[in-house]
């Protein structure tokens, strides 16, 4: 698989480490009343779709950036690659 890095261009996926679902960006607030339930869902429960899937990849053997990759899990076709920092900012998770 080739991941089209937003800054570095096309890179082989073997340079990357795959973490998992991009919902991991949305860490719950530990001070919420339902924090235990929210962290259980956050850590352990997954949609696991057959089809379009947003996931976090880490460019371990490259510039060490985190990417949000949109990939089809039935064909491995990648339709969109964004910097996770941009995505986190857009979701209000980072400044």
């Amino acid at each position, binding site marked *: *698989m080739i991941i089209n890095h937003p800054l570095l261009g096309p890179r*082989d*996926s*073997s340079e990357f480490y*795959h*973490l*998992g*679902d991009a919902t991991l960006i949305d860490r719950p607030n530990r001070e919420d009343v339902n924090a235990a339930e929210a962290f*259980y869902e956050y*850590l*352990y*429960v*997954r*949609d*696991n*779709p*057959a089809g379009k*899937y947003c*996931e976090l990849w880490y460019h371990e053997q490259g510039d060490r950036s985190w990417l949000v990759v949109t*990939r089809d*899990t*039935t*064909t*491995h076709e990648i339709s969109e690659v964004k910097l996770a920092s941009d995505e986190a900012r857009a979701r209000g998770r980072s400044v």
Partner: protein
Amino acid sequence: MRFSALKVLTEGLTGNKGWTPHWREREPKNEYDIIVVGAGGHGLATAYYLSKKYGQKNIAVLEKGWLGGGNIGRNTTIVRSNYMLPENNPFYEHAMKLWENLEQELNYNAMMSQRGILNLGHSDAQRDTYARRGNAMLMSGADAVLLDRNGVRNLVPFLNFDHERFPITCGLWQPRAGTARHDAVAWGYARGADQNGVDIIQNCEVTGFQIENGVCTGVETTKGKITAKKVGVCVAGSSSRVMEKAGMRLPIESHVLQAFVSEGLKLTIPGVVTFGAGHLYISQSDKGGLVFGGDIDKYNSYAQRGNLPVIEHCAEDMMAFLPMLGRARLLRMWGGVMDMSMDGSPFIDKTHIEGLYFNGGWCYGGFKATPASGDCYAHLLAKDEPHPLAANFRLDRFMRGQIIDEKGVGAQPNQH
């Protein structure tokens, strides 16, 4: 029809005209006591034990495609009970004991071959962990032998013992482990279940569940609605997709695991050997092909095919400890979709929906569990209470903090 040496002989002398189909083609009835969704190894074993051991009569197994077409037909056929955690190994040892008597039980040649599994060790630390694991295995009734370098050399003298980075210094050997013919396991259980009156219905996809007021009363299929008192889902690889139809989200990700077979060679490797400094397991089939596999591809996939980096990694591992195979040619490779659970351990449990049960999350270790999974799931379905050996394989264990993390890597499915 019972198989016997006499039957083989007489059929051979009379033109093999007396063989009959191993199971019947069935159309679904309107109503069953128990429906098992998925005619893979675990589903068929469940139906078999329900009908044989737990006295259930009115059972159907529904299968989207053809019987045994999923991971029971795609694995590397290894059977073993060398787990460590007390929640796991008694269960797998139960499976091992069922494996040892499977062919007599089913009157079917599953080519069970107890040639042993040898885990290679390459450091002092690894010898310590093998000693610990071996002791845990002995305590749960399994067999284990800790070998030093010479012990390993006596068993498999052809390995590369003096690799610069990963010299072989020790090994953990389970003599009772081995391999079984994967397809024949599915066929044997299907034949046994069919003989006990189970309806095995192929090309019948479950498209939805009939759930009213929190009670599951049946399934919707491509062959119409079927009512059932209990529905047991058993579709590892597709668990999330099927349980989504019941509105459930699972602690599971689907990942692809590749397996490989070489061209046929003369007898080369006596049992199953695994490399301890990477991840590679290899055995030799009765046809002579070397059957081997390694890690999953580490990204979510439903594609049933993998990518080249894992193949390269497996080849590198193999060259590190079996350089004599460097000129063997790869004959075939394939991929299967694994239910990778969040702690690397499976589920055999009720769901919050009454009458709906779930079996899945086998990661890439489901084949060896087949008989015990079927037995324990049948126990749960028939008696509504978990089998003591599978009582920890619960869906809510993450919420309760009772995870069963054999490898100790946390909620990271691609690392288990």
